[in-house]
């Protein structure tokens, strides 16, 4: 059984088709990259997988269950991070993690928070208000929130956008470690091709709401006769 299975998924907004009949499966423990230009339907796809957006037709199965039928229970096993959403700025780092730990029903929450703060180098910021932190520190707090429930399925929307190369590299390392330790399934939407090459087992290429190519990074590079994934991306986007 696949961790994520997308069948004939469509989303229409009035006259616009944001996602057109996409199909893919992600096996448990795999990390898959979702690539495509702005407005190609990546965020809408992630939104439908999270049950935030209702598909016009088609289905999203999480561990074989339709997200539309059992949203709350399935969301307990999932989490999400995006630079476009934030945690409450007036709450301290620890308070935010405690709130989300409770919402996700995390057992031994105190230990879990300590563990995450240590792994993500946040211990010294525990009592600081989240809004007072630098963007790199905030990003790590958001990542801590996304990992608080040890998600079986983790959706990442540009997790290192706006981070300097050093912090970006650090965050990628954390994601890599988490995935291998927990055997989690990760769907990563990103514009950073190096990140995708480093983290992902396979890549899905989206354009105009459709999946137009997919496969391992190396296979795509040789199939399209390019030097790296970025060139493949540019070729596909500009064609």
């Amino acid at each position, binding site marked *: 059984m696949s961790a994520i299975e997308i069948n004939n998924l469509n989303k229409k907004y009035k006259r616009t088709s944001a996602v057109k009949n996409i199909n893919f499966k992600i096996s448990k423990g795999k990390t898959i990259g979702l690539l495509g230009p702005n407005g190609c339907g990546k965020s809408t796809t992630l939104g439908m997988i*999270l049950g935030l957006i209702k598909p016009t037709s088609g289905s999203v199965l999480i561990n074989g269950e339709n997200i539309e039928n059992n949203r709350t229970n399935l969301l307990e096993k999932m989490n999400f991070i995006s630079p476009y959403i934030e945690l409450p700025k*007036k709450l301290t780092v620890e308070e935010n993690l405690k*709130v*989300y730990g*409770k919402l996700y*029903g995390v057992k031994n929450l105190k230990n879990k928070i300590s563990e995450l703060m240590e792994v993500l180098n946040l211990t010294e910021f525990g009592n600081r*208000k989240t809004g007072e932190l630098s963007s790199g520190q905030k990003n790590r707090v958001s990542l801590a929130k996304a990992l608080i429930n040890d998600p079986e399925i983790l959706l990442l929307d540009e997790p290192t956008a706006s981070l300097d190369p050093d912090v970006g590299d650090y965050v990628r390392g954390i994601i890599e470690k988490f995935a291998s330790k927990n055997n989690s399934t990760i769907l990563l939407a990103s514009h950073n091709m190096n990140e995708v090459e480093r983290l992902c087992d396979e890549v899905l290429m989206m354009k105009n709401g459709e999946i137009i190519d997919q496969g391992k990074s190396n296979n795509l590079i040789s199939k399209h006769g390019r030097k790296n994934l970025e060139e493949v991306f540019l070729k596909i986007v500009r064609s």
Partner: protein
Amino acid sequence: MQFHRIYGLFLRHFYLIRSSFPRILDLVYWPTIQIILWGFISKFFTMHSEFYNNTAGIILSAAILYDFLFRSSISFNMLFLEEIWSRNFTNLFIAPLKVNEIVIALTATALIRTLIGIVPAVLLASPFFGVSLLDLGPALILLLLSLYAFGITLGLFVVSGLLRYGPAFENVAWSSLFLLAPLGCIYYPLSILPDWLQVIAKGLPLVYIFEEVRSILLNNVVNYSNIMLALVLNFIYFLLSIFVFYKAFDEARNRGTLINVGE
């Protein structure tokens, strides 16, 4: 329904209130000013109005109860607006929260916000103006319950609008109760309204609540059928608001507005 999730959402707002003294001051400040202002107006009317000359503080009691209603409704709206302002909206909706858990958590938290604001004002009313809500007797419990239920119901309608239309609906959130206040007959009897407006006003539980407040304080008579009618109307409106909230949530999912909501 899971208690830990309700508690988690409650904690989010509890930490927020606790974190800021100006925030607590803001909660207390307006009800207190309101009660002091209406206290003096009430005192003036008591001394110069035939209608009120037997009973001190009818207007002040009505003002306190109206403020209780106002605070409960605004508190409910504020809790939701806080999520939009802080861009935390999407985080909450991808958490495993059920709609009924959200409603229960916000209802409980709104009660605490309301009490923080209104209790000091109520306590001030007694030594300063000699007015105590306890003069309303045991019926006070049912009247407060009815007002709180209506405040939450109104809050649910407004929050449904925020879900459906996004932050642009914020202005309605602030003005919603002012729209109904003239029809609620808070400071005057129903008979003051023109006949056609009376018909509309009778559809609101507020009319029965405030008519009853005047009846108790002026005539010392409790008409429980009025109180029950207010509670029944509240129950109907509350069910309707829950239905509208679910519809708005569904519509927001259809329109994709639950993702990236923020100012």
